């Protein structure tokens, strides 16, 4: 029989250290929902989602009760809508977003991802229309999340798309000005986007995926921090070993829930995403793990090294715990969703430049960054270009979720509420990048040998 101290350890991790399953995400293919009539296509989409995901929330809740592990979110990801909608002759895809929103509402999930386009090499007509519809779509819906992949290691960086995304982000912020530009919190610009990511706002169901899959994202920064508290003063070997063991335990729970959910729902098991995802709750912060390693404040010198160690150890521990690992799998550093990150920005320890450096060694990128409302579209595009370059050159996923909060300036705090938290407005570089962005075209795919 299992030992009492092991049982107590599990219970403590759940009750005191905020260990939870962050999300069960059902990926649904909509490839059979194309139609020359937009209305028919949307009816098919609605019917398919509400049929496939009918029992998703209930099953999640049942597992939560039986195993005593909180499952915070139940979500849906779908095939990028640009691929589905472009068979129709409609110019405006906002109605597709509204259909997704209604379907999400009907089955009770809190987010649905996949109002997306993959344009890392170029646009199709559907991609263009979808991207143009993003600001309206995100401001007129509550649960729809959108993502655009603008770069990949194999294709290079689509600078035209990046330039356009700068304007789209500005427009989305303005349309939701009264709520701090919240539409931008539901929009991710990717390089090397994974096709099986269960986390929002960047989740979509890739074209190489099966009809319907269940993927699970785990969490547990609190459990890692608490384990590290017990080895204070130990060397980095000890730090790394401790993180690995904790990550293993956390991921095993993810694996159990994913297997159980997919069996009960009768759909295949996709992946477990090993990410350490923070929440604004006290004791659920990635920044505090880095500080536990000995940094006075997250963002100071040494932060990138600490994060590199954390990210690597989480993966090493997690990989053996699950039969299929995928998605983003790494530590997240979303500023507004992490109490320690917010504090570090407010104390002046953490800057946008340092965050960019940190994204070189962890997933997923510049996440939930609030910048002044008067930041230009070109500057936002240049921030995206930098991040895409990091992803493309290092053969990893990077992303930007940036919110130019209308009417706000450095030092202000923008409240988004819930898991999105509250973001301190961060300073951007005052010098312009406009001429650089204006060039347009593509940055060619990088050489992947002679690496230095």
């Amino acid at each position, binding site marked *: *029989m*299992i*030992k*009492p*101290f*092991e*049982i*107590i*350890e*599990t*219970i403590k991790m759940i009750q005191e250290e905020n260990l939870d399953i962050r999300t069960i995400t059902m990926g649904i293919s909509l490839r059979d929902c194309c139609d020359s009539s937009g209305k028919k296509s949307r009816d098919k989409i609605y019917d398919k989602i509400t049929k496939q995901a009918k029992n998703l929330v209930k099953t999640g809740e049942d597992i939560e*009760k*039986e*195993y*005593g*592990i909180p499952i915070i979110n139940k979500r849906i990801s779908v095939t990028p809508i640009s691929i589905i909608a472009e068979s129709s002759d409609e110019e405006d895809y906002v109605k597709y977003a509204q259909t997704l929103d209604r379907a999400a509402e009907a089955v009770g999930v809190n987010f649905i991802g996949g109002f997306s386009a993959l344009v890392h090499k170029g646009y199709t007509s559907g991609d263009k229309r979808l991207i143009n519809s993003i600001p309206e779509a995100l401001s007129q819906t509550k649960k729809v999340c959108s993502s655009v992949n603008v770069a990949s290691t194999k294709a290079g960086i689509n600078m035209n798309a990046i330039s356009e995304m700068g304007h789209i982000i500005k427009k989305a912020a303005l349309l939701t000005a009264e709520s701090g530009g919240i539409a931008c919190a539901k929009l991710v610009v990717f390089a090397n986007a994974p096709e099986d990511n269960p986390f929002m706002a960047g989740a979509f169901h890739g074209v190489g995926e099966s009809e319907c899959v269940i993927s699970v994202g785990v969490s547990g920064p609190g459990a890692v921090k608490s384990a590290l508290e017990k080895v204070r003063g130990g060397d980095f070997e000890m730090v790394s070993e401790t993180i690995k063991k904790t990550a293993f*335990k956390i991921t*095993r*729970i993810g*694996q*159990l829930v994913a297997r159980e959910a997919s069996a009960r729902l009768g759909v295949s098991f996709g992946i477990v995403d090993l990410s350490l995802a923070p929440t604004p709750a006290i004791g659920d912060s990635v920044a505090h793990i880095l500080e536990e390693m000995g940094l006075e404040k997250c963002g100071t010198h040494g932060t990138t090294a600490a994060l590199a160690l954390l990210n690597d150890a989480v993966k090493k521990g997690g990989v053996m715990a699950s039969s299929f690992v995928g998605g983003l799998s790494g530590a997240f550093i979303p500023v507004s969703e992490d109490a320690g990150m917010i504090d570090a920005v407010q104390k002046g320890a953490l800057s946008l430049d340092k965050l960019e450096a940190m994204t070189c060694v962890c997933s997923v990128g510049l996440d939930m960054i609030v910048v002044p409302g008067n930041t230009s579209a070109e500057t936002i595009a240049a921030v995206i270009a930098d991040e895409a370059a990091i992803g493309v050159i290092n053969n990893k996923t990077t992303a930007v979720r940036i919110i130019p909060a209308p009417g706000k300036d450095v030092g202000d705090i923008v409240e988004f509420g819930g898991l999105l938290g509250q973001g301190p407005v961060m300073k951007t570089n005052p010098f312009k990048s406009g001429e650089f962005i204006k060039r347009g075209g593509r940055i060619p795919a990088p050489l992947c040998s002679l690496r230095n």
Partner: protein
Amino acid sequence: MRAVITVIGKDKVGIIAGISNTLADSNVNILDISQTTMQDVFTMIMLVDITNMDVPFETLSEELEKIGLSMQLSVKIQHEDIFNTMHRI
């Protein structure tokens, strides 16, 4: 199917009686009981067989929680697989 019931809190008269009565009423068989005091906290762990249980899992879970509340204890029932998965390869 087996589940683990954990009782955590301050030791007092009637804990086992209260819980085992509820279990018997629901046709749940107790397989093993162990109790210890860890860091000054009384901890009782019960392994139970819920295969022939005649109430829904949720109802039993709520019943046990209620007993816990009345005795100022935390009482939880969880499927044993969550512990096996985490601590056994």
